[in-house]
C-alpha cells in the first residue's frame, strides 16, 4: 500500500519534471539555456521514473521473494548511473562544440570563455 503510493509519487515527480523540460526547450532563447532545460530537467525526470521502478522491484520482492526482482532493481540502479554519467559527459561535449564552432550565448551578461580567447 505504501509502496504503491511511493511509486505514484515518484512517477508524478518524474512526469512533472519531464514536462518542464519540454516547456523550457520551447521557451529559452539560445542553445545553452535550452540545453539546461532539455538535459537537466529530463535527467531528474528520468531518474525519478527509474526510482519508481526500483520501489516497485523492492516491494514486489518483499511480497514474493522471487529473486528476479533483485535483478530488476539492480539493473535499474546501473541504468540510473549510466544515464547520469552519459548525460553529464554528452552535454559538456555539446556545449564545448557549440562554443568552439562560434555559437555564442545570445543573451548573456558575461562571457569569460570568449575573453580568454579560446
Amino acid at each position, binding site marked *: 500500500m505504501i509502496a504503491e503510493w511511493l511509486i505514484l509519487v515518484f512517477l508524478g515527480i518524474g512526469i512533472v*519534471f519531464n514536462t*518542464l*523540460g519540454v*516547456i*523550457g526547450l520551447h*521557451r*529559452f532563447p*539560445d542553445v*545553452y*539555456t535550452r*540545453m*539546461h*532545460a532539455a538535459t*537537466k*530537467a529530463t*535527467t*531528474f525526470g528520468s531518474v525519478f521514473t527509474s526510482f519508481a521502478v526500483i520501489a516497485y522491484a523492492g516491494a514486489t520482492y518483499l511480497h514474493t521473494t522471487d*529473486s*528476479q*526482482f*533483485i*535483478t530488476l532493481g*539492480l*539493473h535499474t540502479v*546501473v541504468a540510473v548511473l549510466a544515464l*547520469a*554519467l552519459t*548525460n*553529464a*559527459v554528452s*552535454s*559538456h561535449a555539446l*556545449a*564545448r562544440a557549440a*562554443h568552439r564552432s562560434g555559437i555564442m*550565448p545570445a*543573451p*548573456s*551578461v*558575461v*562571457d*569569460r*570563455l*570568449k575573453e*580568454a580567447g*579560446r
Partner: protein
Amino acid sequence: MIPFILTFLFSLFIYLVLTAGSGDVGLWSVSELIAGVALSLLTAAIARKFLCRGENYRMANPVRLILIPVYIIGPFFLEVIRANLDVAYRVITGRIRPGIIRVSSGLQTDLGIFMLANSITLTPGTITVDIDESTQDLFIHNINIHPGDEGKQVIPARDLFAFSDLATWIRRIAE
C-alpha cells in the same frame, strides 16, 4: 601484480552486480560465479594497464570508495534537488541572466577535476563548457548569474552551491 588484482576485483564486482539474483549461492548460481571469475581473470590480463595507468593506488582506499556513494546520496543529491526547483521556476517565469563565468576549482588531479566538472554539469542551471588545463579553472555556463558576480574575474567553486561545498567533498574523495 597490484594492477592485475585491482582490475580483477573491479570487473568481478561489476559482473556480480549485473548477475545478482541468478541462483541460490548467496544471490548467484554456481555457473555464474565460475564464469564471472574466469571472465574477470581474462579482463584483468588484458586491461590491467588501462585502469591503473597512473601508478597511483589512492582510489583503492576503502574509505574513499565508501565516501563516493555517501557524497552522491547526501550533499550532491540535495544540491541537484534545489537546483532543479530553481530551474523549474526559471522555466515557468522566464527570468534568466545567462552567461559564462570562470570558476577556480582548487583541485589538482585529473579525477578530481573530472568529478567536479561532472557534478557541476549534472546540477541543473550550470554546464561546464571548457577547462583551462594550465590553471585548472572551469568555464561554466550559468543560467542565472547573481547580480554582481559578472564583474569578478574568477569565482571560487563554493559560491556555485547553496548548501555544501562540493569541491571540498571531492578533494576529500579524490585527492
